[in-house]
């Protein structure tokens, strides 16, 4: 298992208070929103803030690719590798 992907899964679970869900329950290619994990728009904002805080990534409100970046754990990991300032810590 990719460490960064695993860290992002733990971040999602902790920041969004996902009760009774563990990292193994989230497949890296599982859609996070709507069908799949079932997260909503408040989660999207909350997760965006946590990703900025933890990995130092920059997200611009008008960026049309945000939806792509937040599709699943794989795309979030790709965003961090591409743009992030390294894996700082996953403490929310």
């Amino acid at each position: 298992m990719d460490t960064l992907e695993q860290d992002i899964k733990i971040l999602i679970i902790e920041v969004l208070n996902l009760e009774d869900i563990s990292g193994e329950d989230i497949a890296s290619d599982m859609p996070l929103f709507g069908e799949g994990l079932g997260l909503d728009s408040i989660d999207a904002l909350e997760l965006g803030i946590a990703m900025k805080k933890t990995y130092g990534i920059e997200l611009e409100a008008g960026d049309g690719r945000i939806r792509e970046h937040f599709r699943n754990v794989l795309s979030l990991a790709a965003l961090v590798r591409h743009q992030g300032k390294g894996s700082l810590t996953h403490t929310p």
Partner: protein
Amino acid sequence: MISWDVPIVRWVQWPGIGAAELGFIEPLLRRRLSSLARGALHVANACAQGCPSATFVFASRHGELTRTVELLRSLAHDEELSPTLFSLSVLNAAAGIFSIARGDRAPATAIAAGVESFGYGLLEAHLRARKSPAKPLVYVYADAPAPDPIGPQSGDPQAVFALGLLIQGDASSRLHTAFRPGTMVGTPATLQANACLRALERGSADWTSDRHHWCWNLR
């Protein structure tokens, strides 16, 4: 002196016997509930059992003040605000979640009236019930001590406390409430809802703040 009677079908307190039953709320909705909202919705649901359609009145002195304080801390530290905290920091947060979980679009009321929030919430419940006596009305009072740096106030519970009443016209027990201006200036108040709970358990109780003297009798 102001007084009124409400017919009581049943009442539920939290903490009570056993764990909070919140299985009626799906996990994705439930995960965002504070311990205060969990207590409030446990008693609300227990009172509303068998009532697919009911009127709801919620009351709380502080509501989700813990979330508001966290938001203010973030602002003070120049941090971004949590959307979850923001969306659920309002006094009617529990009422909103309950409405979604029940799939019930009926309007609900959320009341705050300082140290006398329980009593004025009960007055609101009485007025709503009087308009449509046949329809069940669930009255839910819930509070927790004010968080730091404000700290617990006179009349706050020591921990999360919730009391729910099911009020409906054909109940045989009637809870009589009366209050009049008080003169006990500087009296350290206890939790007002606890006095009503004592009356429900033992028949009568009274309670005094520096504003009013309240008494309850179960008939």
